[in-house]
């Protein structure tokens, strides 16, 4: 197959990259983050939110510098193949696929569950399937329409948080609905509670790193990726803080710590029908935006691995008309459906988060190697991450702290996850590696860049 036939279309701008990153993450502000309140209390939740904000700001900066140099599908996978070799690249690619496919399955399940709350006569099953099939169809038809759609639904969902904020009249102390001092429980478990809250604090931002996976499809990677990813991070920091502020002021910490839909519950507390309906719509749209972005990212990781021969090349085909990795997109649909119907939502999400955290560890190590192999001035960078190596050290330290917090509640899941990736690595090293075309793997970068230092 000629080389140019195997490349995706370059149609995306910064807005699409913003929509991809924020779209995947925003669902975490509508649900999931509030378990930080159960672990660390109201104050612990906001401390965990901002500490995780530091982790993700570091991650986005590190990721964006490397991503702006490597305009290839697969994001962190593509970085790993250049800076860490085929085995690490295979693991990172697999982790990305599992992170996003499992998150996509969980999002679709939640859409079904939310619709069921409208009437017990609604059957959630066809709506779960419709969500997954509909968004897969959109992805199949082209990335431009997919991410334009994601921009619209993400922006609507994000704006509903502001509607909720202003509906509380927080700016008029006499008539404000917020009772933060009364509903807050401070730091009931002290500093150890904050450590425990980290694993749920990631919900505020988990997935923003997915912006790098669409690097190949940007019209100008050096501009779109930094602008889209960094504005996305700012958007999320503002959204996360407002979410904590509104929910903590409207819902008592006892209920907030165990709520399934915290923003929706906060809307219910305002007793304003318009706000309640808007937050209901926002919750559904945020789930759909997340699932949509996850399909885009998972398929790009799978496609990139196949194109580099780490998995069968069959999945590297590009649709002749829509220029999408159509085989990879369709292949991952039944897998997402299968994860969705295990009924183990908690386990599926934990495995997704574990996979993401492992990718962050790899990313920090890759950044050290990248700066050593290609020091400043040796190649053109679209974005320069400030404060190196402190951003990578912070990323490494906070990811390890989050994994430590996760260990207390989910050690068995973590053990199973590690075992899975060790077995996958063994399969790759003992069986698949002989089919890998090592020259083809790094040919694109090797043609563009000078020989790295030390090689």
């Amino acid at each position, binding site marked *: 197959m000629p080389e140019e036939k195997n490349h995706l279309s370059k149609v995306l701008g910064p807005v699409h990259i913003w929509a991809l990153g924020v779209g995947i993450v925003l669902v975490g502000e509508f649900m999931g983050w509030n378990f930080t309140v159960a672990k660390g209390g109201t104050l612990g939740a906001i401390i965990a939110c901002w500490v995780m904000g530091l982790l993700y700001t570091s991650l986005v900066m590190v990721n964006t510098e490397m991503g702006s140099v490597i305009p290839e599908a697969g994001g962190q996978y593509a970085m790993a193949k250049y800076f860490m070799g085929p085995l690490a690249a295979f693991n990172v690619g697999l982790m990305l696929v599992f992170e996003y496919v499992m998150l996509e399955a969980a999002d679709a399940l939640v859409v079904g569950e939310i619709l069921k709350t409208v*009437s017990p*006569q*609604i*059957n959630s099953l*066809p709506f779960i399937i419709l969500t997954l099939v*509909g968004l*897969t*169809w959109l992805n*199949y038809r082209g990335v431009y329409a997919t991410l334009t759609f994601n921009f619209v639904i993400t922006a609507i969902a994000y704006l509903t948080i502001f509607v909720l904020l202003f509906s509380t009249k927080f700016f008029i102390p006499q008539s404000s609905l917020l009772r933060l001092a009364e509903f807050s429980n401070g730091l009931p478990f002290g500093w150890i509670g904050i450590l425990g809250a980290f694993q749920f604090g990631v919900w505020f931002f988990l997935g923003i790193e997915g912006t790098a996976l669409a690097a190949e499809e940007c019209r100008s990677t050096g501009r779109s990726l930094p602008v889209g990813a960094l504005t996305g991070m700012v958007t999320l920091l503002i959204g996360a803080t407002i979410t904590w502020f509104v929910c903590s002021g409207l819902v008592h910490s006892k209920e907030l710590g165990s709520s399934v839909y915290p923003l929706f519950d906060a809307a219910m507390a305002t007793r304003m029908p318009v706000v309640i309906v808007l937050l209901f719509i926002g919750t559904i749209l945020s789930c759909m935006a997340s699932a949509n972005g996850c399909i885009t990212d998972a398929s790009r990781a799978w496609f990139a691995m196949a194109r580099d021969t780490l998995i069968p090349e069959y999945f590297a085909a590009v649709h002749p008309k829509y220029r999408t990795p*159509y085989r990879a997109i369709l292949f991952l649909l039944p897998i997402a459906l299968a994860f969705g119907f295990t009924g183990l939502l908690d386990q599926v999400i934990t495995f997704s988060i574990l996979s993401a955290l492992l990718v962050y560890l790899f990313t920090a190590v890759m950044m050290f190697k990248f700066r050593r192999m290609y020091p400043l001035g040796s190649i053109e960078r679209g974005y320069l991450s400030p404060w190196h190596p402190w951003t990578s050290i912070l990323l490494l330290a906070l990811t390890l702290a989050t994994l430590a917090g996760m260990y207390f509640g989910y050690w068995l899941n973590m053990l199973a996850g590690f075992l899975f990736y060790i077995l996958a690595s063994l399969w790759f090293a003992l069986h698949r590696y002989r089919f890998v075309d090592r020259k083809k793997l790094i040919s694109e970068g090797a043609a563009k860049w000078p020989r790295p230092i030390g090689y």
Partner: protein
Amino acid sequence: MNGWQVLNGLAWGLSALLLALMGLDFVRVERARASEKKE
């Protein structure tokens, strides 16, 4: 049949339609690719 059941049916129908559309296109593309390879 009430409104909710109609809605459930619509969701099933739409899912089937989209799957069929993707399936048909997939078959068309694979056939074209196979004949291209033969040539």
